[in-house]
């Protein structure tokens, strides 16, 4: 598939080929909408079903049933008639539903009648000392390497640290695969239980409960687990030691691989750049788009489905994708046949039950979200927590001014790895809320493109559009 082969207009453009995107594309294409799904990875599946069609891991027990559920979803989308384009990077989405996409080094601008953003989530920044050292990666990265390439940690000492369900899932997967995992440092704040407890009944009734319990058991039986409330990575050119505080004492552990995780947050860059209104979610400590029951946003024609609309997991993501697609079909072709939304909403409710418990239980530690001193906040431009805090104290009220003063958020990652930290630090220093502080103003390209790619936009297209405006 080349950029030149794309049509100039599609009824529906779906961005992201994880559960939400796959489910949405399947529903829309089956109902007769001309549908294209773009994903920047070499295959569909998103993060949760990463490499679902190509993983070298044939032993299904390693990744578990929840992973292999993606097979049916991918097959359904593949058979639906939707055009699925992988290796396609969407770098721009405007409020008029124009989409800028690059495929194999060439760019195109196409027009959509409806958009479903299904760009999912990314791991919450984990700004501790040494988190930029080679040898420190995210837990999600290790999981990706496992799913896509069948790579498991196999160094001298592997440490997994942080909090959240994925931490335990990855631990179990590494152990099942026969990889090396020497210690799990559980940084879940003990006090979280108090707020989580009232949601326990819902959790017990949810599908997460039994899965979660057996996962904890599986890991605890095979990996030493230590409760920690302080963590750093130490080394000059690469990770040498993990330093952690447990029961008031500091411990040092020689290690060559540290995998960090403290939950996932919506990947908001594309939606923000398109002008979608977002709000702060205090329970999940992140910004999320404001959506209605059909996942429509403040920008007419743009819906956000999946974890991008608020973290709820893979099964929920697929249901949200279906609802968003049903709404798109109804808007464009009221006579088309679509699945009944009611049972989908019921499944959604069932799946969402229990989420509050997990959110409160695994709400990450303040100290691990709001660093101090020389800890890097912005990895790209190497801006420290002290610089951000000092600048906030001097009167800098928001992330956009901070960006102009310190260049944080102006590197290639475009704030994905520092945005939440900068917002939370400003709020803390100025005694206000993250909601009031807000987030970086994001501009396309939401993924960097080369000058050559941009120059490659078909000239006729450029001229035609220029005349239309």
């Amino acid at each position, binding site marked *: 598939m080349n950029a030149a082969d794309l049509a100039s207009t599609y009824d529906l453009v779906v961005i992201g080929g994880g559960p939400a995107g796959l489910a949405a594309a399947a529903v829309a294409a089956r109902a007769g909408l001309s549908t294209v799904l773009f994903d920047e990875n070499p295959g569909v599946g998103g993060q949760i079903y990463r490499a679902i069609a190509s993983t070298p891991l044939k032993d299904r027990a390693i990744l578990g049933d929840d992973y292999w559920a993606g097979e049916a979803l991918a097959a359904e989308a593949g058979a639906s008639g939707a055009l699925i384009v992988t290796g396609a990077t969407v770098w721009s989405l*405007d409020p008029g539903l124009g989409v800028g996409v690059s495929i194999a080094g060439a*760019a195109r601008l196409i027009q959509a009648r409806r958009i479903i953003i299904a760009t999912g989530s990314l791991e919450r920044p984990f700004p501790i000392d040494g988190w930029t050292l080679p040898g420190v990666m995210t837990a999600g990265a290790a999981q990706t390497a496992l799913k896509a390439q069948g790579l498991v940690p196999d160094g001298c000492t592997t440490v997994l640290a942080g909090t959240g369900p994925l931490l335990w899932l990855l631990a179990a997967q590494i152990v099942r695969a026969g990889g090396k995992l020497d210690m799990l440092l559980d940084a879940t704040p003990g006090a979280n239980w108090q707020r989580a407890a009232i949601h326990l009944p819902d959790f017990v009734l949810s599908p997460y409960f039994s899965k979660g319990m057996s996962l904890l058991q599986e890991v605890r039986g095979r990996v030493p687990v230590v409760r920690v409330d302080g963590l750093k990575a130490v080394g000059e050119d690469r990770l040498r030691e993990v330093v952690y505080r447990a029961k008031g004492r500091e411990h040092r552990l020689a290690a060559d691989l540290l995998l960090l995780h403290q939950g996932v947050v919506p990947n908001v860059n594309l939606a923000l750049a398109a002008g979608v209104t977002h709000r702060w979610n205090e329970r999940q400590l992140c910004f999320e788009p404001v959506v209605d029951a059909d996942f429509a946003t403040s920008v007419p024609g743009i819906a956000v489905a999946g974890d991008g609309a608020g973290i709820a997991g893979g099964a929920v993501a697929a249901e949200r994708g279906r609802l968003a697609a049903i709404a798109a079909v109804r808007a464009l072709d009221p006579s088309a046949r679509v699945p009944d939304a009611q049972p989908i909403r019921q499944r959604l409710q069932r799946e969402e039950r229990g989420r509050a418990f997990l959110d409160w239980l695994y709400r990450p530690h303040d100290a691990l979200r709001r660093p101090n001193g020389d800890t890097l906040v912005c990895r790209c431009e190497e801006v420290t927590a002290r610089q951000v805090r000092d600048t906030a104290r001097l009167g800098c009220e928001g992330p956009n001014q901070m960006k102009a*003063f310190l260049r944080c958020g*102006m590197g290639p990652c475009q704030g994905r790895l520092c945005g939440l930290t900068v917002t939370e630090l400003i709020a803390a220093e100025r005694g206000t809320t993250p909601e009031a502080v807000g987030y970086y103003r994001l501009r*396309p*390209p939401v993924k960097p493109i*080369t*000058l050559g790619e941009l120059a490659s936009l078909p000239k006729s297209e450029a001229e035609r559009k*220029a005349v239309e405006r």
Partner: protein
Amino acid sequence: MTRTADVVVIGGGIHGCSTALHLALRGLKPILVEKDYAGRHASGVNAGGVRQLARHVAEIPLSIASMALWERIEELVGDDCGFASHGTVLVAESEEELAGFRARVEDLRLKGFTHEELLDRRELKELVPAVSDHCPGGVVSRRDGAADPFRTTQAFRRRAVEKGAEIIEGVRVSGLARSGSAWRVETSDGPIEAPKVVNAAGAWADRIAAQLGEPVPLEVIAPMLMVTSRLPEFIAPVVILRSRKLSFKQLGNGTVVIGGGHLAEPHRDENRTVLDWPKLAISARTVWELFPVMREATIVRAWAGIEASMPDEIPVVGLSTTSEGVFHQFGFCGHGFQLGPATGAVMAELVATGSTNTPIDGLGIARFLPDRARPARS
């Protein structure tokens, strides 16, 4: 409660902040009212060019006066504003174009302006080695340079406050009217009374002017800019083109800012712009042709700042023709950043003394008013 001041400055861009500073330096008490925050729009997000080159003759005196201030900017505002002087080069892409430039440079000399110098092919290559070989020469203004726009605007704001100006941000002006011998400026934070008012409201300045019976054909524009990731140093001066829209500069941190005047769709009431990628693609193609070294460079961001343009592409600077005590300072048409320091000084001089020695003839608002009989005053 009604606040009082000597002057109300409307608008916290570099122009309003500079005027507030120069008023305070003259011992006056200005209150500056800004609806967002200082430098939120074009003043904070422009390309940062500090350029005398290729300006309309009517604004050259202001530009030259400003250059003198830029060269002692740290003394003026207590911050070097990231200003560095490596010249601006206007590149000719054909012999015909170069001939036109030659005529312009000669004409400027006759008028007494010597800051523009013609470059032949060899001289151009010396100044801009990376430029494509098809370019036969150009024009340089050697004292020109570039600065960090947000930092500059903030520095003016900060120094103005240190010198006694009051700056109110997040407050919107809703109207103004005479109140005895003073002006009463209504704001979302209560009224302010002052004998003098400066309208430096940028893309919103026409609304103030209209209330004074001076409707102007202001166009809201949002010139687009792109910036690359950090590149090895390969170019010192700012490069501009005339036949095609391009301005091009490499900052000290290695990133390259590409602009030149292709416009985004502005939505001034929502503080929002929508980028026009087909036009940015035209910029990308121009750079592709002019600087082959840039072809694999990565574009990490694109944006546009909202500002005002006038039909004749020069600003409105001077006294109101209808309203005693009101002064206009807006409509800088995408090239007002360099003019900020001196225009603020001139406005302060006008406010304090009623006149200025810097020639600003031709910039008055009268040129847009239907009654051409009214003399354009400066």
